[in-house]
């Protein structure tokens, strides 16, 4: 075997990364052994099927990936801060912008949103867990090991370097002979299967496990957005699965699906990628709309304006999201008729999105608004996202797009959509639901400090890119000459990036500070909430609700508080819960090795790992574990303890 291909050469930065990864791994292993936490880790986290813990793990992984992707972003901004910079070479720059895109979309935004839906959706619908708790664990571990596989590419073998969209023919074996794009196809495939399973799981959960009386049109808006998102996941991800499989065949087994010779068609990759890729944008943005809807209603002390139109605009967005993909490649060579068609469908999406924006504004109107940290993010989202939307309509005009295509204008546009649309939302949701999970709030003062750093620096970073794009700077160029005149605005953008980094460090410091010093929230309802998740204790017991709530109206908890009607009428009975299992974790580990061996075309170990996957699947299919019951006495004891404010 040739060890040479595992090595990545040249850059002191890469050696630094190798050493820090090695040190961090050793540190974690030594720490776990020293504090005797191995058993705790295995029992409480690695084998858990509890939706809350899985959600927390998703969010932790997303925060880690946010910093990995953030460091990538800082390196790019530093490299382009001044003309002729020598910080990164061209190859390294290519790897950094590719992994930045992949990590931020697939391993930061997606898991953060899936984490929030894991924690909140079962609580909002009054359920005790998701429909398939074990599959939920499988989802998480497949996502996690897919993400790890992509991350080790940086130090073992080299990262993918053909952009996050990996267009052929550049991503083909002929033009990208390193293993980088093998990592791309396999890491995304493994985590994509996890996402697909999540999609099925949550559709079933929301359709079948709602508390009695909660009709579809009485569901909280976040749950609605999650339902629609998961429907999009189930229909969009199979396209990615197929495209990635074809890519893997091309790169590993010499098939010719996307090559330019032998009847292959390189453009078909771009086509399939965006058939998935455009709905993917709505997969990360619709739950964000749901989060904002909850936050605006709560902090305006009003029910959401135009509930029905909110639901229908999301349904229309989900349908239209499948009809616009060609706007990502207007310049590829299709005729004016095709481009006009996709122009019109793209602009049509602005209509339901506009409906939502106006609904939020009308919810604010005459509301009693409190400016908490989550609310500030929400209020900042509305104007900033609108700038992103308006520039989106500019890009949607096919003839004008020939000017903007692949310039920094586009880069500015999608950051203006995705950062307020997804990142602000998950941070707002994180602040909003933090007390639900941990029983204390994050510090408001620190939260507002980091909010202002993030919002102002975001605009300083990305607004100059609009002008750079119009001046003719294309995306993904690793350096430029002084005569181009791109220098000053790029320097300004770098200054903004530093400010963003400070904002995110403050956010993490806030988590640390609040964990140590914030007082416990004794009310379980710190924000005067409206929906069912606030009707149980914070942090909630393993069974969520001692008694399943009976719902009669929308905003059930709010109405119960206002009209003094009881939500929980039934007597406590014994509660059926799923038992923990280590199999999903083991399956994830085997998938990781399968992916790794395939990346390096090590066939014998890959076959062994593949057989291992099949054995694990069989073992999980024939597992006859029907869960366990929590007795009435035990539930009563737990409830008593929680009432006194003790943790369980």
């Amino acid at each position, binding site marked *: 075997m040739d060890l040479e291909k595992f090595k990545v050469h040249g850059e002191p930065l890469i050696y630094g990364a190798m050493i820090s990864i090695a040190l961090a791994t050793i540190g974690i292993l030594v720490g776990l052994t020293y504090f005797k936490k191995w058993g705790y880790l295995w029992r409480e986290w690695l084998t858990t099927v509890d939706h809350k813990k899985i959600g927390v793990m998703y969010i932790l992984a997303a925060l880690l990936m946010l910093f990995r992707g953030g460091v990538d972003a800082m390196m790019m901004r530093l490299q382009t801060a001044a003309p002729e910079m020598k910080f990164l070479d061209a190859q390294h720059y290519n790897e950094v912008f590719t992994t930045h895109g992949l990590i931020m979309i697939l391993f930061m935004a997606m898991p953060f949103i899936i984490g929030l839906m894991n924690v909140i959706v079962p609580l909002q619908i009054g359920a005790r867990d998701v429909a398939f708790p074990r599959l939920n664990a499988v989802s998480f571990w497949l996502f996690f090991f897919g993400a790890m596989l992509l991350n080790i590419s940086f130090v073992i073998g080299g990262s993918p370097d053909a952009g996050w969209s990996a267009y052929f023919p550049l991503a083909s074996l002929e033009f990208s002979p390193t293993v980088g794009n093998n990592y791309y196809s396999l890491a995304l495939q493994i985590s994509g299967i996890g996402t697909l399973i999540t999609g099925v799981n949550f559709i079933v959960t929301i359709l079948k496990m709602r508390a009695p009386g909660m009709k579809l049109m009485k569901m909280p808006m976040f749950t609605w957005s999650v339902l629609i998102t998961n429907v999009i996941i189930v229909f969009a991800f199979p396209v990615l699965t197929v495209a990635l499989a074809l890519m893997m065949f091309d790169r590993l087994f010499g098939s010719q699906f996307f090559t330019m010779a032998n009847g292959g068609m390189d453009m078909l990759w771009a*086509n399939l990628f965006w058939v998935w890729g455009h709905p993917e944008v709505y997969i990360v943005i619709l739950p964000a709309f749901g989060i904002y809807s909850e936050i605006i209603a709560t902090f305006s002390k009003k029910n959401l304006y135009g509930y029905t139109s909110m639901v229908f605009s999301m349904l229309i967005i989900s349908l239209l999201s499948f009809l616009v993909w*060609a706007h990502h490649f207007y310049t590829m060579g*299709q005729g004016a008729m095709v481009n006009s068609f996709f122009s019109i469908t793209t602009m049509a999406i602005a209509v339901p999105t506009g409906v939502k924006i106006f609904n939020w504004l009308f919810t604010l109107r005459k509301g009693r608004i409190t400016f908490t940290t989550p609310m500030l993010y929400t209020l900042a989202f509305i104007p900033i996202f609108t700038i992103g939307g308006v520039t989106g309509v500019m890009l949607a005009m096919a003839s004008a797009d020939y000017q903007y295509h692949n310039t920094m204008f586009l880069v500015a546009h999608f950051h203006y959509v995705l950062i307020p649309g997804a990142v602000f939302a998950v941070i707002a949701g994180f602040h909003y639901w933090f007390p639900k999970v941990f029983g204390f709030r994050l510090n408001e003062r620190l939260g507002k400090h980091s909010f202002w750093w993030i919002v102002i620096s975001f605009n300083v970073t990305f607004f100059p890119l609009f002008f750079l794009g119009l001046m003719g700077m294309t995306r993904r160029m690793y350096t430029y000459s002084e005569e181009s005149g791109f220098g000053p605005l790029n320097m300004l953008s770098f200054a903004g990036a530093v400010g963003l980094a400070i904002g995110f460090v403050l956010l993490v410091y806030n988590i640390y500070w609040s964990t140590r010093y914030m007082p416990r929230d004794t009310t379980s309802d710190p924000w005067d909430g409206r929906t069912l998740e606030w009707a149980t204790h914070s942090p909630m017991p393993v069974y969520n609700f001692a008694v399943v709530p009976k719902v009669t109206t929308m905003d059930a908890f709010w109405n119960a508080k206002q009209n003094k009607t009881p939500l929980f009428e039934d007597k406590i009975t014994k509660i059926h819960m799923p038992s923990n299992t280590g199999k999903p974790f083991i399956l994830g580990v085997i998938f990781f090795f399968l992916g790794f061996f395939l990346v390096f075309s090590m066939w014998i170990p890959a076959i062994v790992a593949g057989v291992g996957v099949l054995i694990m699947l069989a073992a999980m299919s024939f597992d006859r574990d029907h869960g366990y019951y929590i007795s009435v006495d035990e539930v009563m004891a737990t409830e008593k303890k929680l009432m006194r404010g003790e943790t369980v």
Partner: protein
Amino acid sequence: MMKQLFPIRHVMGYLASLVLSAAALIVIYGDLSKGANMAVLLVTAIIQASLQLFVFMHIGESADTKKELYINIAYALFVGLVTIYGTLYIFVWGWYA
């Protein structure tokens, strides 16, 4: 006892879908006319799809979720047809010539 434990229906369904996939290969290895090829593909595809729906996806069961099931199938058809005909529209019918 064995009869209860062994999922004969599913195994038969699985074997049938393998046979149907193999039968469709006649289009490549056989020497039929274009019309006959399309007929073979159409017939095997329809049987294959209904096999999936009835044996593995339990479309015949549980009357209370009928509505959701049919909405789902309609949506899947919509996405599938849009993807296929959209791709043909971009690369064949609407290609710049």
